[in-house]
């Protein structure tokens, strides 16, 4: 399959680009929500609009009422979300949540899927325990109790955790903290007794929770996939989330690059446009090259995932790492090339820097994925 968008994908991209630029713009979404001290972390009205366009069901099968499309298409949406820094539960719900629910019981599907498709339901991933992404270790305990399980432990960096209708929780049902086996995924309803939220605002104005589980009782139908056999499903969910985050990162990088090159073409110093200076031209050209390569890595990984390639995981890690490194360069160069105004809240470039930082950390930073590439490659 050629590494560019098909005609259908190009049409989708055209539609989504216009829609998100109009409805998800920095001024009317990110800045408005932030400046009004909103705590939901997103605009429910916009989420509803996503649903009206069918986007919330992009990965869900047509049988489930979705569009039945793949990661390339989900990435098209995420790229524009990234470019506009649109606060949206799309990644956590329509990509991560939807992938997880694919293996859920009909009961759980029936509980959440219609709401996702209608743009009324939001899901959150509760995975990390501690400040770094280390999914190899899962400590939160789920013990058999009654007709289901009792969950005890804590999760961190749960994006949209406090407003989500359900949490996708990775829990340990047997074995030691770092065992590959013995993990089980649950879809835990937000109102289950014993859940505590400490919702915090992050650097990019998004909302995340430290979630505590104090003997939270859930019934057996909340189990996603097999008890003790959740690792493979978790990997699948993580692949989806990571390539989604990578696509969003590339949108952030592309957006930062566009406003930066725009600035180089308008700002004058020493009687010349600063874009005339070769020192800046070479840095901008190098940055362009990095961003192009990151784009290629992302579409390659998306296609491998959509094609069911067994080696997709390596390329997903390559894409997540490369996207975060390239975008990090874009925001750092962006602020520097803007000079003093790059440090002001009035200019948008700083917002890109903040978003990059949060997305780079989400589901593993570049060093995590470099380690993973080495391990998967046998060294």
């Amino acid at each position, binding site marked *: 399959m*050629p*590494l*560019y968008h098909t005609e259908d994908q190009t049409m989708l991209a055209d539609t989504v680009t216009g829609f998100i630029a109009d409805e998800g713009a920095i001024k009317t979404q990110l800045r408005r929500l932030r400046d009004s001290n909103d705590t939901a972390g997103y605009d429910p009205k916009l989420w509803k609009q996503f649903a009206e366009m069918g986007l919330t069901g992009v990965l869900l099968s047509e049988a489930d009422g979705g569009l039945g499309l793949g990661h390339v298409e989900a990435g098209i949406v995420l790229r524009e979300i990234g470019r506009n820094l649109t606060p949206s539960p799309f990644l956590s719900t329509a990509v991560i949540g939807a992938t997880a629910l694919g293996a859920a019981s009909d009961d759980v599907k029936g509980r959440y899927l219609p709401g996702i498709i209608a743009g009324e339901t939001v899901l959150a991933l509760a995975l990390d325990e501690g400040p770094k992404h280390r999914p190899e270790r899962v400590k939160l305990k789920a013990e058999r109790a009654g007709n289901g399980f009792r969950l005890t432990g804590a999760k961190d960096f749960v994006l949209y955790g406090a407003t989500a209708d359900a949490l996708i929780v990775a829990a340990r049902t047997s074995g030691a903290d770092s065992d590959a086996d013995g993990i089980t995924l649950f879809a835990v309803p937000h109102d289950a007794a014993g859940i505590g939220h400490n919702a915090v605002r992050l650097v990019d104005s998004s909302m995340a929770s430290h979630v505590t589980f104090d003997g939270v009782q859930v019934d057996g139908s909340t189990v996603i996939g097999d008890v003790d056999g959740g690792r493979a499903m978790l990997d699948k969910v993580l692949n989806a989330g990571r390539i989604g985050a990578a696509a969003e990162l590339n949108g952030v990088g592309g957006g930062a690059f566009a406003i930066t*090159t725009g600035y*180089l*073409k308008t700002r004058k110093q020493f009687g*010349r*446009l600063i*874009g*005339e200076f*070769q020192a*800046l*031209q*070479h840095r*901008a*050209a*190098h940055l*362009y*090259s*990095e961003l*192009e*390569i*990151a*784009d*290629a*890595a992302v*579409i*390659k*990984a998306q296609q491998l995932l959509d094609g069911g390639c067994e*080696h997709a995981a*390596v*390329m997903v*890690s*390559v*894409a997540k*790492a*490369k996207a975060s*490194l390239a975008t990090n360069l874009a925001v750092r160069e962006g602020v520097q090339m803007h000079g003093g105004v790059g440090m002001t809240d009035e200019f948008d470039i700083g917002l890109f820097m903040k978003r990059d930082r949060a997305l780079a950390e989400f589901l593993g930073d*570049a*060093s995590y*994925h*470099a*380690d993973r*590439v*080495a391990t998967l*490659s*046998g*060294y």
Partner: protein
Amino acid sequence: MSETDTFRAEIRAWLDGNCPPEMRLPVADEDDVCWGGRNPKFKNEAQKLWLDRCAAKGYTVPDWPVAYGGAGMTPAQAKIWREELGRIGGRSPLSSFGIWMLGPALLKFGTEEQKVHYLNPIARGEVRWCQGYSEPGSGSDLVSLQTYGDDQGDHWVVSGQKIWTSYADKADWIFCLVRTDKTNKYQGISFLLFDMTTPGVTTKPIKLISGNSPFCETFFDNVPVPKHQIVGELNRGWDVAKYLLGHEREMISGAGGADRLNTIGAMAHRHGGIDNPVLRAELALFDIDALAYGAMGEKFLDEAKVGKAHPAQPNMMKYAGTELNKRRHELLMAAGGSTALEWDSAETRGGAAPRGWLRTKANSIEGGTSEVMLNVVAKRILDLPGA
């Protein structure tokens, strides 16, 4: 079975039956590369057999028209050919500046007669070409070149000097930029083809820091070149040259990428392990860049075939690919330790590692320096002012 699947099955079956086992081993040194030519040097019988079999099917240039020695494959079919060849680790049957550089220029600018006459021997590996571009005073500023072709009616008499002519001493023919109008800088250059055995042509290999001499100085002393051996219009050779440079940059940029099974970390691991976490991290970060660049190469090729790629994109590819390749060899030297310092021992295949490492330093100079590539990207892709 879809048409694509049928085609893939055919290619796979043909490769199974025709690609000799020796030609499925990784290329270890320069002798493993087959360049063809009037006086070809084959390392073994398998290399010759592989070239002959591919040439008979047009597989040395799968996407060239059949009339010019190709197999007439569509871009999608040619991709399948590359994928299937890659799947068995099969070597390229023929390395050739004729294929990579002159061929595309002739296909675009040549007359029908020229295409038939020159392309077929290229496809069969019977004529080896070299490129006469740079001159001692014209490196990055190539258009200032001075080699002059004096109009003598039915032929030009060419005099001057070229430098960095890759394998000029082994080539049969040269494609050469020659000034045919001294009053017009850009529109005063013509693109000429001539036989390296023509009286007046001499070559002198240049010894490089690698100890090898892949490049030559090439001297022209009143070399007669018939008028029909011009490609494109008189004085419009710069257009041909620019087009061809795009292909050269593509070719050089191909060096940077990696595939999943061929990461530098995995290679270093096989060669005795990586016992230092910092080196392992450097290798892993490199592999991320190399695998990502591999995808970039694939994407660029796919886009170029259907006209979706920015025309200046090869400059970006050339920049990124060559910088990556230099980094690869720095890491290979680091991973190899003192073994990689040995200059001529038999155990190190004559110092393949250090010589290869030094060779890569030219990657970001030849075919346009990294700095020139960045200039072009800034101007033509980013549209920055005054560039």
